Protein backbone atom coordinates (compact mmCIF):
# COMPACT_ATOMS: atom_id res chain seq x y z
CA UNK A 1 0.00 0.00 0.00
CA UNK A 2 1.22 3.47 -0.81
CA UNK A 3 -0.53 6.80 -0.37
CA UNK A 4 0.23 10.41 0.29
CA UNK A 5 -1.82 13.04 2.09
CA UNK A 6 -1.28 16.64 0.97
CA UNK A 7 -0.81 19.40 3.49
CA UNK A 8 -3.99 21.18 4.51
CA UNK A 9 -6.44 18.66 3.06
CA UNK A 10 -9.08 16.50 4.69
CA UNK A 11 -8.20 12.93 3.84
CA UNK A 12 -10.94 10.33 4.33
CA UNK A 13 -9.84 6.78 5.06
CA UNK A 14 -12.71 4.29 4.90
CA UNK A 15 -13.10 0.54 4.91
CA UNK A 16 -15.22 -2.24 6.39
CA UNK A 17 -14.45 -3.74 9.80
CA UNK A 18 -11.11 -5.53 9.73
CA UNK A 19 -9.86 -3.57 6.73
CA UNK A 20 -6.78 -2.45 8.67
CA UNK A 21 -7.62 1.25 9.17
CA UNK A 22 -6.93 1.29 12.90
CA UNK A 23 -3.69 -0.66 12.47
CA UNK A 24 -2.57 1.80 9.79
CA UNK A 25 -3.44 4.77 12.00
CA UNK A 26 -1.69 3.24 15.02
CA UNK A 27 1.44 2.88 12.91
CA UNK A 28 1.19 6.52 11.80
CA UNK A 29 0.77 7.50 15.47
CA UNK A 30 3.93 5.46 16.34
CA UNK A 31 2.04 3.22 18.76
CA UNK A 32 2.54 0.19 16.52
CA UNK A 33 5.83 -0.50 14.77
CA UNK A 34 5.44 -1.55 11.13
CA UNK A 35 6.88 -4.99 10.34
CA UNK A 36 7.94 -3.74 6.91
CA UNK A 37 7.71 -0.64 4.73
CA UNK A 38 8.18 3.05 5.44
CA UNK A 39 5.97 5.82 6.69
CA UNK A 40 6.49 9.54 7.10
CA UNK A 41 4.51 12.23 8.85
CA UNK A 42 5.50 15.83 8.13
CA UNK A 43 8.73 14.42 6.68
CA UNK A 44 9.59 12.44 9.81
CA UNK A 45 10.17 8.69 9.69
CA UNK A 46 7.56 6.99 11.91
CA UNK A 47 10.13 4.49 13.25
CA UNK A 48 13.38 6.45 13.40
CA UNK A 49 11.90 9.82 14.35
CA UNK A 50 8.96 8.71 16.46
CA UNK A 51 9.32 11.60 18.92
CA UNK A 52 9.14 14.22 16.14
CA UNK A 53 6.15 12.43 14.63
CA UNK A 54 4.38 12.50 18.02
CA UNK A 55 4.98 16.23 18.26
CA UNK A 56 3.48 16.72 14.78
CA UNK A 57 0.26 14.82 15.29
CA UNK A 58 -2.87 15.24 17.36
CA UNK A 59 -5.01 12.14 17.69
CA UNK A 60 -8.71 11.80 18.41
CA UNK A 61 -9.46 8.12 18.83
CA UNK A 62 -12.78 6.35 19.07
CA UNK A 63 -11.91 5.73 22.73
CA UNK A 64 -11.71 9.03 24.58
CA UNK A 65 -8.23 9.76 25.84
CA UNK A 66 -9.32 11.46 29.04
CA UNK A 67 -9.25 10.73 32.77
CA UNK A 68 -12.76 10.84 34.24
CA UNK A 69 -11.81 11.79 37.82
CA UNK A 70 -9.82 14.81 36.61
CA UNK A 71 -11.21 18.18 35.53
CA UNK A 72 -10.78 19.45 31.95
CA UNK A 73 -7.97 21.72 33.10
CA UNK A 74 -6.17 18.88 34.89
CA UNK A 75 -6.56 16.59 31.88
CA UNK A 76 -5.19 19.20 29.50
CA UNK A 77 -2.38 20.16 31.89
CA UNK A 78 -1.33 16.54 32.17
CA UNK A 79 -1.08 16.01 28.43
CA UNK A 80 0.43 19.47 27.85
CA UNK A 81 3.18 18.65 30.35
CA UNK A 82 3.97 15.46 28.47
CA UNK A 83 4.73 17.70 25.47
CA UNK A 84 7.05 19.79 27.69
CA UNK A 85 4.96 22.91 27.11
CA UNK A 86 5.89 26.02 29.05
CA UNK A 87 3.44 26.38 31.93
CA UNK A 88 2.29 29.92 31.02
CA UNK A 89 1.86 29.06 27.35
CA UNK A 90 0.09 25.86 28.32
CA UNK A 91 -2.32 27.66 30.63
CA UNK A 92 -3.16 30.21 27.93
CA UNK A 93 -3.60 27.47 25.35
CA UNK A 94 -5.90 25.50 27.67
CA UNK A 95 -8.15 28.54 28.15
CA UNK A 96 -8.22 29.24 24.42
CA UNK A 97 -9.14 25.64 23.61
CA UNK A 98 -11.75 25.35 26.35
CA UNK A 99 -13.33 28.45 24.90
CA UNK A 100 -13.16 26.96 21.39
CA UNK A 101 -14.85 23.73 22.45
CA UNK A 102 -17.42 25.53 24.62
CA UNK A 103 -16.37 23.96 27.93
CA UNK A 104 -15.17 27.03 29.78
CA UNK A 105 -18.10 26.99 32.21
CA UNK A 106 -17.37 23.42 33.32
CA UNK A 107 -13.59 23.67 33.38
CA UNK A 108 -13.38 22.73 37.08
CA UNK A 109 -15.80 19.82 37.08
CA UNK A 110 -14.69 16.18 36.82
CA UNK A 111 -14.88 14.86 33.28
CA UNK A 112 -16.80 11.84 34.61
CA UNK A 113 -19.86 14.07 34.98
CA UNK A 114 -19.79 15.12 31.30
CA UNK A 115 -22.05 13.90 28.49
CA UNK A 116 -20.44 11.96 25.62
CA UNK A 117 -20.60 15.04 23.43
CA UNK A 118 -18.83 17.21 26.02
CA UNK A 119 -16.15 14.56 26.47
CA UNK A 120 -15.54 14.33 22.75
CA UNK A 121 -15.18 18.13 22.53
CA UNK A 122 -12.62 18.00 25.33
CA UNK A 123 -10.92 15.07 23.61
CA UNK A 124 -10.55 17.21 20.51
CA UNK A 125 -9.14 20.06 22.60
CA UNK A 126 -6.60 17.63 24.04
CA UNK A 127 -5.49 16.58 20.59
CA UNK A 128 -4.92 20.22 19.57
CA UNK A 129 -3.09 21.28 22.72
CA UNK A 130 0.43 21.21 21.32
CA UNK A 131 -0.47 22.83 17.99
CA UNK A 132 -0.07 19.73 15.80
CA UNK A 133 0.19 20.14 12.04
CA UNK A 134 -1.66 16.89 11.40
CA UNK A 135 -4.86 15.82 13.13
CA UNK A 136 -5.91 12.18 13.00
CA UNK A 137 -9.58 11.60 13.77
CA UNK A 138 -10.70 8.00 14.21
CA UNK A 139 -14.51 7.77 14.31
CA UNK A 140 -14.86 11.19 15.97
CA UNK A 141 -18.67 11.32 15.79
CA UNK A 142 -19.35 7.77 16.92
CA UNK A 143 -22.11 7.68 19.55
CA UNK A 144 -22.74 11.43 19.59
CA UNK A 145 -26.12 13.14 19.42
CA UNK A 146 -26.97 15.07 16.20
CA UNK A 147 -26.06 18.43 17.74
CA UNK A 148 -22.65 17.19 18.82
CA UNK A 149 -22.11 15.51 15.45
CA UNK A 150 -22.83 18.82 13.72
CA UNK A 151 -20.46 20.64 16.04
CA UNK A 152 -17.63 18.13 15.47
CA UNK A 153 -18.08 18.27 11.68
CA UNK A 154 -18.05 22.07 11.69
CA UNK A 155 -14.95 21.99 13.86
CA UNK A 156 -13.18 19.66 11.40
CA UNK A 157 -13.88 22.22 8.65
CA UNK A 158 -12.41 24.93 10.91
CA UNK A 159 -9.27 22.82 11.35
CA UNK A 160 -8.82 22.71 7.59
CA UNK A 161 -9.39 26.45 7.42
CA UNK A 162 -6.59 26.90 9.96
CA UNK A 163 -4.30 25.03 7.54
CA UNK A 164 -4.13 21.75 9.40
CA UNK A 165 -4.00 18.40 7.63
CA UNK A 166 -6.84 16.13 8.72
CA UNK A 167 -6.94 12.34 8.38
CA UNK A 168 -10.47 11.16 9.06
CA UNK A 169 -11.72 7.59 9.39
CA UNK A 170 -15.38 6.85 9.88
CA UNK A 171 -18.08 4.37 8.91
CA UNK A 172 -20.42 7.29 8.25
CA UNK A 173 -20.28 7.71 4.49
CA UNK A 174 -22.36 10.88 4.69
CA UNK A 175 -19.63 12.38 6.87
CA UNK A 176 -16.99 11.45 4.29
CA UNK A 177 -19.14 12.88 1.51
CA UNK A 178 -19.52 16.12 3.42
CA UNK A 179 -16.01 16.59 4.75
CA UNK A 180 -13.33 14.70 2.87
CA UNK A 181 -11.63 16.02 -0.25
CA UNK A 182 -9.58 12.95 -0.99
CA UNK A 183 -10.86 9.48 -0.11
CA UNK A 184 -9.02 6.18 0.22
CA UNK A 185 -11.10 3.01 0.35
CA UNK A 186 -9.27 0.10 1.90
CA UNK A 187 -10.05 -3.53 2.56
CA UNK A 188 -8.06 -6.50 3.88
CA UNK A 189 -4.94 -4.41 4.37
CA UNK A 190 -4.95 -2.93 0.84
CA UNK A 191 -6.05 0.40 -0.58
CA UNK A 192 -8.59 -0.49 -3.26
CA UNK A 193 -8.98 2.99 -4.67
CA UNK A 194 -7.84 6.47 -3.80
CA UNK A 195 -8.64 9.82 -5.29
CA UNK A 196 -10.58 13.04 -5.24
CA UNK A 197 -14.04 12.40 -3.84
CA UNK A 198 -15.90 13.74 -6.89
CA UNK A 199 -13.61 11.93 -9.32
CA UNK A 200 -14.26 8.65 -7.52
CA UNK A 201 -18.00 9.15 -7.75
CA UNK A 202 -17.93 10.01 -11.45
CA UNK A 203 -15.54 7.12 -12.17
CA UNK A 204 -18.12 4.72 -10.70
CA UNK A 205 -21.08 6.64 -12.11
CA UNK A 206 -22.73 7.16 -8.73
CA UNK A 207 -23.80 10.15 -6.62
CA UNK A 208 -22.64 9.04 -3.23
CA UNK A 209 -19.35 7.81 -1.73
CA UNK A 210 -21.36 5.06 -0.04
CA UNK A 211 -22.13 3.56 -3.45
CA UNK A 212 -18.45 3.72 -4.45
CA UNK A 213 -17.60 2.02 -1.16
CA UNK A 214 -20.15 -0.78 -1.61
CA UNK A 215 -19.23 -1.38 -5.23
CA UNK A 216 -15.59 -1.85 -4.20
CA UNK A 217 -16.00 -3.79 -0.97
CA UNK A 218 -19.21 -5.71 -1.73
CA UNK A 219 -22.49 -5.97 0.13
CA UNK A 220 -21.93 -9.18 2.09
CA UNK A 221 -21.76 -8.85 5.89
CA UNK A 222 -18.31 -8.75 7.46
CA UNK A 223 -18.07 -10.79 10.62
CA UNK A 224 -14.43 -10.20 11.42
CA UNK A 225 -13.05 -11.90 14.51
CA UNK A 226 -10.31 -10.28 16.48
CA UNK A 227 -6.84 -11.49 15.51
CA UNK A 228 -6.16 -12.98 18.93
CA UNK A 229 -9.21 -15.21 19.10
CA UNK A 230 -8.90 -16.19 15.45
CA UNK A 231 -5.54 -17.78 16.14
CA UNK A 232 -6.90 -19.96 18.95
CA UNK A 233 -9.36 -22.03 16.99
CA UNK A 234 -12.39 -19.87 17.76
Amino acid at each position, binding site marked *: MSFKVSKGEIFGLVGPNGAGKSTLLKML*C*TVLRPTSGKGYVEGHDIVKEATEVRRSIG*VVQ*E*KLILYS*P*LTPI*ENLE*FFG*NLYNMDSKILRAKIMELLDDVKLMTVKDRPVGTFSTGMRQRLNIARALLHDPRVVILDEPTNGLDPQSVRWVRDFIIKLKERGLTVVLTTHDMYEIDELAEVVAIMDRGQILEIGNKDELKSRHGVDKIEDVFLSLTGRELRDELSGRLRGRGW
Partner: protein
Amino acid sequence: MQKGSFYHLYIVMKKDLTEFYRVRARLVSMIMLPILLMLLFGYMFPSSGSITHIPIAIVNQDQSATAIQVINSFTYMAQSGNAFNVLTYTSLAQAQQALLQGKIYAIVIFRPGFGEGLKSGAAAVQVIVDQMNPTLDQVVTGGIQSIFSQLNVQLSLSQGFPAQAGTISVNFQGLIPGSPSSFEFLAPGFIAMSMVMGGLAGLAMTFSRERELGTLDGMLMTPISRFSIVMGKAMAQAVRGIISGVMIVILAIILFGVKIYGNIFLMSLIIFLGILSFTGLGLIATSFVSDQESAQMIMLMIEMPMIFISGIFYPVLQLPLWLRDIAYMLPLSYTVSAFRSVMVMNAPLSAVWPDVLVLIVYSLVTFAIAIPLFQKMVTK
Protein backbone atom coordinates in the same frame (compact mmCIF):
# COMPACT_ATOMS: atom_id res chain seq x y z
CA MET B 1 16.52 23.30 29.59
CA GLN B 2 14.73 20.37 27.96
CA LYS B 3 12.46 18.57 30.39
CA GLY B 4 13.44 14.92 30.48
CA SER B 5 12.31 11.47 31.52
CA PHE B 6 12.26 12.23 35.25
CA TYR B 7 10.02 15.26 34.72
CA HIS B 8 7.59 13.09 32.75
CA LEU B 9 7.87 10.42 35.44
CA TYR B 10 6.77 13.02 37.98
CA ILE B 11 3.90 14.19 35.76
CA VAL B 12 2.59 10.63 35.34
CA MET B 13 2.92 9.96 39.06
CA LYS B 14 1.08 13.17 39.95
CA LYS B 15 -1.72 12.40 37.52
CA ASP B 16 -2.15 8.86 38.88
CA LEU B 17 -2.28 10.12 42.48
CA THR B 18 -4.75 12.91 41.65
CA GLU B 19 -6.95 10.44 39.79
CA PHE B 20 -6.74 8.02 42.69
CA TYR B 21 -7.57 10.73 45.22
CA ARG B 22 -10.62 11.83 43.21
CA VAL B 23 -12.23 8.39 43.04
CA ARG B 24 -13.62 8.09 46.54
CA ALA B 25 -14.30 4.34 46.29
CA ARG B 26 -10.64 3.62 45.53
CA LEU B 27 -9.49 5.94 48.28
CA VAL B 28 -11.86 4.46 50.84
CA SER B 29 -10.90 0.90 49.93
CA MET B 30 -7.22 1.76 50.24
CA ILE B 31 -7.82 3.11 53.73
CA MET B 32 -10.43 0.63 54.92
CA LEU B 33 -9.02 -2.69 53.77
CA PRO B 34 -5.80 -2.65 55.79
CA ILE B 35 -7.61 -1.16 58.78
CA LEU B 36 -10.25 -3.89 58.70
CA LEU B 37 -7.61 -6.56 58.40
CA MET B 38 -5.61 -5.09 61.21
CA LEU B 39 -8.63 -4.86 63.52
CA LEU B 40 -9.67 -8.37 62.62
CA PHE B 41 -6.33 -9.95 63.33
CA GLY B 42 -5.52 -7.60 66.17
CA TYR B 43 -8.57 -8.63 68.19
CA MET B 44 -9.09 -12.24 67.22
CA PHE B 45 -5.44 -13.17 67.62
CA PRO B 46 -4.05 -15.78 68.10
CA SER B 47 -4.80 -19.47 67.63
CA SER B 48 -2.32 -22.30 67.52
CA GLY B 49 -2.17 -24.72 64.66
CA SER B 50 -0.41 -27.94 63.93
CA ILE B 51 3.08 -26.58 64.39
CA THR B 52 5.75 -29.25 64.77
CA HIS B 53 9.51 -29.62 65.16
CA ILE B 54 9.99 -26.15 66.59
CA PRO B 55 13.70 -25.71 67.27
CA ILE B 56 14.42 -24.78 70.89
CA ALA B 57 17.69 -24.68 72.81
CA ILE B 58 18.76 -25.98 76.20
CA VAL B 59 21.59 -24.29 78.07
CA ASN B 60 22.75 -26.30 81.07
CA GLN B 61 24.71 -24.17 83.53
CA ASP B 62 24.35 -26.59 86.42
CA GLN B 63 25.94 -29.89 85.31
CA SER B 64 24.60 -31.76 88.36
CA ALA B 65 23.35 -35.31 87.89
CA THR B 66 19.84 -34.20 88.80
CA ALA B 67 19.89 -31.43 86.22
CA ILE B 68 21.16 -33.83 83.53
CA GLN B 69 18.41 -36.28 84.46
CA VAL B 70 15.71 -33.60 84.24
CA ILE B 71 17.13 -32.34 80.95
CA ASN B 72 17.10 -35.84 79.48
CA SER B 73 13.50 -36.29 80.53
CA PHE B 74 12.58 -32.86 79.18
CA THR B 75 14.32 -33.58 75.85
CA TYR B 76 12.62 -36.96 75.54
CA MET B 77 9.16 -35.52 76.25
CA ALA B 78 9.71 -32.49 74.01
CA GLN B 79 10.78 -34.57 71.04
CA SER B 80 8.50 -37.55 71.48
CA GLY B 81 5.42 -35.67 70.32
CA ASN B 82 7.31 -34.08 67.41
CA ALA B 83 6.47 -30.70 68.90
CA PHE B 84 10.07 -29.60 69.42
CA ASN B 85 13.57 -30.22 68.16
CA VAL B 86 15.82 -29.77 71.16
CA LEU B 87 19.33 -28.43 70.53
CA THR B 88 21.98 -28.13 73.20
CA TYR B 89 24.11 -24.99 73.49
CA THR B 90 27.09 -24.75 75.78
CA SER B 91 26.89 -20.99 76.22
CA LEU B 92 23.91 -18.71 76.75
CA ALA B 93 25.43 -16.08 74.43
CA GLN B 94 25.52 -18.53 71.53
CA ALA B 95 21.95 -19.54 72.17
CA GLN B 96 20.80 -15.91 72.33
CA GLN B 97 22.56 -15.21 69.03
CA ALA B 98 20.72 -18.17 67.47
CA LEU B 99 17.45 -16.83 68.87
CA LEU B 100 18.03 -13.40 67.34
CA GLN B 101 18.85 -14.99 64.00
CA GLY B 102 15.61 -16.94 64.06
CA LYS B 103 17.36 -20.32 64.15
CA ILE B 104 15.60 -21.29 67.38
CA TYR B 105 12.41 -20.05 69.04
CA ALA B 106 13.16 -20.48 72.75
CA ILE B 107 16.01 -21.06 75.19
CA VAL B 108 15.46 -23.16 78.31
CA ILE B 109 18.13 -22.24 80.85
CA PHE B 110 19.03 -24.45 83.78
CA ARG B 111 20.88 -22.08 86.10
CA PRO B 112 23.70 -23.17 88.46
CA GLY B 113 22.26 -24.80 91.56
CA PHE B 114 19.22 -26.18 89.79
CA GLY B 115 19.77 -29.73 91.09
CA GLU B 116 20.25 -28.58 94.66
CA GLY B 117 17.24 -26.34 94.40
CA LEU B 118 15.11 -29.20 93.17
CA LYS B 119 15.90 -31.19 96.26
CA SER B 120 14.81 -28.31 98.50
CA GLY B 121 11.77 -27.41 96.40
CA ALA B 122 13.11 -24.15 94.99
CA ALA B 123 14.11 -25.17 91.48
CA ALA B 124 13.46 -22.74 88.67
CA VAL B 125 14.21 -22.71 84.96
CA GLN B 126 14.30 -19.60 82.90
CA VAL B 127 12.81 -19.66 79.39
CA ILE B 128 13.53 -16.94 76.87
CA VAL B 129 10.97 -16.95 74.08
CA ASP B 130 11.11 -15.36 70.64
CA GLN B 131 7.92 -13.28 70.45
CA MET B 132 8.39 -12.43 66.80
CA ASN B 133 5.53 -14.67 65.83
CA PRO B 134 2.65 -14.55 68.29
CA THR B 135 1.09 -17.82 67.18
CA LEU B 136 4.36 -19.62 67.63
CA ASP B 137 5.09 -17.75 70.85
CA GLN B 138 1.88 -19.12 72.32
CA VAL B 139 2.56 -22.66 71.12
CA VAL B 140 6.13 -22.63 72.42
CA THR B 141 5.14 -21.15 75.78
CA GLY B 142 2.24 -23.55 76.22
CA GLY B 143 4.28 -26.55 75.06
CA ILE B 144 7.20 -25.90 77.42
CA GLN B 145 4.86 -25.18 80.33
CA SER B 146 3.03 -28.43 79.65
CA ILE B 147 6.26 -30.46 79.58
CA PHE B 148 7.39 -29.03 82.91
CA SER B 149 3.97 -29.71 84.44
CA GLN B 150 4.28 -33.35 83.38
CA LEU B 151 7.84 -33.45 84.67
CA ASN B 152 6.69 -32.13 88.05
CA VAL B 153 4.09 -34.89 88.29
CA GLN B 154 6.63 -37.55 87.31
CA LEU B 155 9.23 -36.21 89.72
CA SER B 156 6.88 -36.17 92.68
CA LEU B 157 5.44 -39.62 91.91
CA SER B 158 8.32 -41.77 90.66
CA GLN B 159 11.40 -40.07 92.00
CA GLY B 160 10.18 -39.90 95.54
CA PHE B 161 10.38 -36.16 96.04
CA PRO B 162 8.22 -34.75 98.80
CA ALA B 163 4.91 -33.26 97.69
CA GLN B 164 6.10 -29.67 97.70
CA ALA B 165 9.69 -30.32 96.81
CA GLY B 166 10.48 -31.22 93.25
CA THR B 167 8.29 -28.53 91.80
CA ILE B 168 10.06 -26.83 88.98
CA SER B 169 8.82 -23.32 88.37
CA VAL B 170 9.19 -21.84 84.90
CA ASN B 171 9.94 -18.17 84.42
CA PHE B 172 9.16 -16.98 80.92
CA GLN B 173 10.89 -13.97 79.52
CA GLY B 174 10.64 -12.32 76.12
CA LEU B 175 13.29 -10.78 73.92
CA ILE B 176 11.69 -7.39 74.24
CA PRO B 177 11.74 -5.66 77.61
CA GLY B 178 8.41 -5.01 79.37
CA SER B 179 5.16 -6.69 78.40
CA PRO B 180 4.79 -6.07 74.70
CA SER B 181 1.43 -6.54 73.06
CA SER B 182 1.34 -9.67 70.98
CA PHE B 183 -0.04 -7.63 68.11
CA GLU B 184 3.18 -5.67 68.17
CA PHE B 185 4.77 -8.59 66.39
CA LEU B 186 2.06 -8.86 63.75
CA ALA B 187 2.05 -5.16 62.89
CA PRO B 188 5.22 -5.19 60.74
CA GLY B 189 3.72 -7.99 58.70
CA PHE B 190 0.48 -6.06 58.24
CA ILE B 191 2.34 -3.01 57.08
CA ALA B 192 4.18 -5.09 54.52
CA MET B 193 0.91 -6.72 53.49
CA SER B 194 -0.75 -3.37 52.90
CA MET B 195 2.14 -2.49 50.64
CA VAL B 196 1.55 -5.63 48.63
CA MET B 197 -2.05 -4.65 48.11
CA GLY B 198 -1.19 -1.09 47.23
CA GLY B 199 1.83 -1.80 45.11
CA LEU B 200 1.32 -5.07 43.37
CA ALA B 201 -2.41 -4.92 42.66
CA GLY B 202 -2.57 -1.15 42.21
CA LEU B 203 0.04 -0.95 39.52
CA ALA B 204 -1.32 -3.89 37.57
CA MET B 205 -4.81 -2.46 37.76
CA THR B 206 -3.80 1.01 36.73
CA PHE B 207 -2.03 -0.32 33.62
CA SER B 208 -4.81 -2.63 32.56
CA ARG B 209 -7.41 0.09 33.20
CA GLU B 210 -5.51 2.59 31.08
CA ARG B 211 -5.15 0.00 28.33
CA GLU B 212 -8.87 -0.71 28.34
CA LEU B 213 -9.84 2.95 28.43
CA GLY B 214 -7.40 3.84 25.65
CA THR B 215 -5.62 6.46 27.74
CA LEU B 216 -2.41 4.43 27.64
CA ASP B 217 -2.41 4.87 23.85
CA GLY B 218 -2.95 8.57 24.49
CA MET B 219 0.23 8.71 26.55
CA LEU B 220 2.16 6.63 24.04
CA MET B 221 1.28 9.13 21.31
CA THR B 222 3.07 11.89 23.20
CA PRO B 223 6.85 12.36 23.32
CA ILE B 224 7.19 10.51 26.63
CA SER B 225 9.46 7.53 27.12
CA ARG B 226 8.16 4.12 28.17
CA PHE B 227 10.55 4.31 31.13
CA SER B 228 8.80 7.47 32.40
CA ILE B 229 5.37 5.86 32.11
CA VAL B 230 6.38 2.70 33.98
CA MET B 231 8.42 4.44 36.66
CA GLY B 232 5.92 7.29 37.11
CA LYS B 233 3.18 4.78 37.78
CA ALA B 234 5.42 2.70 40.03
CA MET B 235 6.30 5.78 42.08
CA ALA B 236 2.61 6.68 42.43
CA GLN B 237 2.03 3.19 43.85
CA ALA B 238 5.03 3.60 46.14
CA VAL B 239 3.56 6.83 47.55
CA ARG B 240 0.21 5.10 48.04
CA GLY B 241 1.89 2.17 49.76
CA ILE B 242 3.85 4.43 52.10
CA ILE B 243 0.72 6.43 53.00
CA SER B 244 -1.08 3.16 53.69
CA GLY B 245 1.85 1.86 55.77
CA VAL B 246 2.07 5.05 57.81
CA MET B 247 -1.68 4.93 58.53
CA ILE B 248 -1.41 1.39 59.83
CA VAL B 249 1.58 2.21 62.01
CA ILE B 250 -0.30 5.15 63.56
CA LEU B 251 -3.41 3.03 64.17
CA ALA B 252 -1.36 0.16 65.56
CA ILE B 253 0.28 2.58 68.00
CA ILE B 254 -3.02 4.15 69.06
CA LEU B 255 -5.19 1.03 69.22
CA PHE B 256 -2.81 -1.72 70.22
CA GLY B 257 0.01 0.10 71.94
CA VAL B 258 2.55 -1.05 69.39
CA LYS B 259 5.95 0.53 69.95
CA ILE B 260 8.53 1.38 67.35
CA TYR B 261 11.99 0.53 68.59
CA GLY B 262 13.88 0.95 65.33
CA ASN B 263 15.10 3.67 63.01
CA ILE B 264 12.26 5.32 61.04
CA PHE B 265 14.48 6.07 58.05
CA LEU B 266 15.66 2.49 57.79
CA MET B 267 12.06 1.32 58.06
CA SER B 268 11.05 3.73 55.28
CA LEU B 269 13.91 2.51 53.09
CA ILE B 270 12.78 -1.10 53.54
CA ILE B 271 9.16 -0.15 52.75
CA PHE B 272 10.23 1.75 49.64
CA LEU B 273 12.40 -1.09 48.35
CA GLY B 274 9.66 -3.57 49.16
CA ILE B 275 7.12 -1.62 47.12
CA LEU B 276 9.50 -1.30 44.18
CA SER B 277 10.05 -5.05 44.21
CA PHE B 278 6.31 -5.72 44.34
CA THR B 279 5.50 -3.32 41.55
CA GLY B 280 8.20 -4.77 39.30
CA LEU B 281 6.85 -8.24 39.94
CA GLY B 282 3.28 -7.07 39.37
CA LEU B 283 4.18 -5.45 36.10
CA ILE B 284 5.86 -8.59 34.79
CA ALA B 285 2.90 -10.73 35.83
CA THR B 286 0.30 -8.52 34.17
CA SER B 287 2.19 -7.66 31.01
CA PHE B 288 0.74 -10.79 29.43
CA VAL B 289 -2.89 -9.78 29.87
CA SER B 290 -4.86 -6.90 28.41
CA ASP B 291 -7.93 -6.56 30.60
CA GLN B 292 -8.52 -5.53 34.19
CA GLU B 293 -10.29 -8.71 35.25
CA SER B 294 -7.47 -10.99 34.12
CA ALA B 295 -4.94 -8.67 35.77
CA GLN B 296 -6.95 -8.83 38.98
CA MET B 297 -7.04 -12.63 38.91
CA ILE B 298 -3.29 -12.89 38.29
CA MET B 299 -2.60 -10.47 41.12
CA LEU B 300 -4.80 -12.43 43.47
CA MET B 301 -2.97 -15.62 42.56
CA ILE B 302 0.36 -14.05 43.49
CA GLU B 303 -0.85 -12.01 46.44
CA MET B 304 -2.74 -14.57 48.46
CA PRO B 305 -0.04 -17.28 48.73
CA MET B 306 2.62 -14.60 49.16
CA ILE B 307 0.80 -13.17 52.17
CA PHE B 308 0.52 -16.56 53.83
CA ILE B 309 4.00 -17.93 53.19
CA SER B 310 6.09 -14.82 53.67
CA GLY B 311 6.30 -14.97 57.45
CA ILE B 312 3.52 -12.55 58.38
CA PHE B 313 1.42 -15.08 60.27
CA TYR B 314 3.56 -18.19 60.23
CA PRO B 315 7.33 -18.42 60.45
CA VAL B 316 9.07 -19.19 57.17
CA LEU B 317 11.35 -21.66 58.96
CA GLN B 318 8.33 -23.73 59.92
CA LEU B 319 7.25 -24.20 56.30
CA PRO B 320 7.98 -27.42 54.40
CA LEU B 321 11.28 -27.16 52.57
CA TRP B 322 9.76 -26.74 49.09
CA LEU B 323 7.40 -24.00 50.34
CA ARG B 324 10.27 -22.32 52.13
CA ASP B 325 12.17 -22.19 48.82
CA ILE B 326 9.18 -20.48 47.21
CA ALA B 327 8.91 -18.04 50.13
CA TYR B 328 12.56 -17.09 49.66
CA MET B 329 11.85 -16.26 46.02
CA LEU B 330 9.26 -13.65 47.01
CA PRO B 331 10.14 -10.08 48.00
CA LEU B 332 7.60 -10.00 50.82
CA SER B 333 9.61 -12.52 52.86
CA TYR B 334 12.63 -10.21 52.87
CA THR B 335 10.54 -7.10 53.48
CA VAL B 336 8.73 -8.65 56.45
CA SER B 337 11.92 -10.08 57.90
CA ALA B 338 13.90 -6.83 57.65
CA PHE B 339 11.03 -4.55 58.62
CA ARG B 340 10.12 -6.63 61.67
CA SER B 341 13.72 -6.82 62.85
CA VAL B 342 14.14 -3.04 62.59
CA MET B 343 10.75 -2.07 63.96
CA VAL B 344 10.51 -4.51 66.86
CA MET B 345 14.13 -5.35 67.68
CA ASN B 346 15.85 -2.12 66.72
CA ALA B 347 18.11 -4.00 64.31
CA PRO B 348 20.66 -1.73 62.59
CA LEU B 349 21.33 -1.72 58.84
CA SER B 350 24.34 -3.97 59.46
CA ALA B 351 21.96 -6.66 60.74
CA VAL B 352 19.40 -6.46 57.92
CA TRP B 353 21.66 -5.64 54.97
CA PRO B 354 21.27 -9.10 53.36
CA ASP B 355 17.49 -8.55 53.16
CA VAL B 356 17.96 -4.96 51.93
CA LEU B 357 20.43 -6.13 49.29
CA VAL B 358 18.01 -8.79 48.06
CA LEU B 359 15.25 -6.16 47.76
CA ILE B 360 17.53 -3.80 45.80
CA VAL B 361 18.57 -6.59 43.42
CA TYR B 362 14.94 -7.75 43.17
CA SER B 363 13.77 -4.23 42.22
CA LEU B 364 16.51 -3.75 39.64
CA VAL B 365 16.00 -7.15 38.05
CA THR B 366 12.19 -7.00 37.95
CA PHE B 367 12.18 -3.51 36.43
CA ALA B 368 14.91 -4.46 33.95
CA ILE B 369 12.58 -7.24 32.80
CA ALA B 370 9.35 -5.27 33.18
CA ILE B 371 10.22 -2.20 31.10
CA PRO B 372 11.03 -4.11 27.86
CA LEU B 373 8.02 -6.35 28.51
CA PHE B 374 5.86 -3.25 28.83
CA GLN B 375 7.31 -1.95 25.57
CA LYS B 376 6.39 -5.24 23.91
CA MET B 377 2.95 -5.28 25.51
CA VAL B 378 1.97 -1.82 24.28
CA THR B 379 3.20 -2.31 20.74
CA LYS B 380 1.62 -5.70 20.09
